[in-house]
């Protein structure tokens, strides 16, 4: 009898876990915003942002970052930290910031998930096309079972953390530049 009760209990837990987990959820834009970045110089210039290397999260996929969410997270981070005076959508900005995700290492199995990411950050003057920064930025983040019990949620947290750290380092690098 006790065994039957335990079996029903475990069945319920597994059913709830299945319903809660689904297969994957995309990284949240808000969770990727880098707050309180130590900015060396606030540039009195405008910038537009281009992102590449991201991908949508399919129903049968693991957590990914869409290019639009990455761009929005970078934009919000720039605005919140006052790195540039304005982020411009389209033409007419002083600088073009391109961020490309070139590598995202995600574990497939485990208790703690560590995601490692490399992104190429380049900043160029829009008028002259002069390249003022080219940087390969590597970051990582570990999410534990204490933070999220379900694997796909844990992976999403690790992805968001790695992106947030990458944006933080990218903004710090740009803030150290002497822009004309």
């Amino acid at each position: 009898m006790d065994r039957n009760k335990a079996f029903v209990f475990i069945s319920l837990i597994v059913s709830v876990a299945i319903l809660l987990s689904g297969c994957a959820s995309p990284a949240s834009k808000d969770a990727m915003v880098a707050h309180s970045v130590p900015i060396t110089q606030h540039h009195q210039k405008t910038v537009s942002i281009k992102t590449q290397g991201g991908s949508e999260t399919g129903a049968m996929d693991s957590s990914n970052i869409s290019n639009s969410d990455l761009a929005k997270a970078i934009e919000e981070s720039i605005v919140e930290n006052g790195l540039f005076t304005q982020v411009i959508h389209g033409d007419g900005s002083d600088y073009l910031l391109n961020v490309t995700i070139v590598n995202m290492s995600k574990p497939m199995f485990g208790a703690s998930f560590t995601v490692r990411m490399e992104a190429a950050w380049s900043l160029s003057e829009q008028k002259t096309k002069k390249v003022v920064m080219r940087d390969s930025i590597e970051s990582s983040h570990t999410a534990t079972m204490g933070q999220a019990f379900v694997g796909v949620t844990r992976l999403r947290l690790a992805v968001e953390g790695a992106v947030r750290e990458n944006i933080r380092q990218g903004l710090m690098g740009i803030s150290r530049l002497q822009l004309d």
Partner: protein
Amino acid sequence: MIRKNWLTLSLLAVVILFNSGCAVNRATATLDPTADLVGIKTIYVTKFAPDGRGINLLISDKLKSMGYSVNTGIDTPKDVDVIVTYKDKWMWDITMYMIELTVIIRDPENNFPLASGNSYHTSLTRKSPDEMVAEVVNNIFKQGVENGQK
């Protein structure tokens, strides 16, 4: 019977709690807007340290077939036009297969990723290592063509 159900449930629970996702097929390439692939003549393919299958040789052969002068090994020389790095990931499903390949073309001066390509194919649509290399490399240079470059 109860023991069998327990086993099934336990396995299911382990998969749900420890697995990070399911299946996907993807092939993408990127090119930094400040990068120029036109002038590339000499390439060095740096062997990925954990690679015991010689994927560096497959990439090297593919690039040679495209007309480039290519060398490969464990170094990171500065006297070439670009360095190619890669990372291969393998899975087991009846047999071992390459599930993911990422190839990055870098500036030898500062390691900056000028262009990159990634292919991800799970078991049912698996490709051979040769096919994975060809797909990734072709996609990278196709990206260059679409941007008005070589």
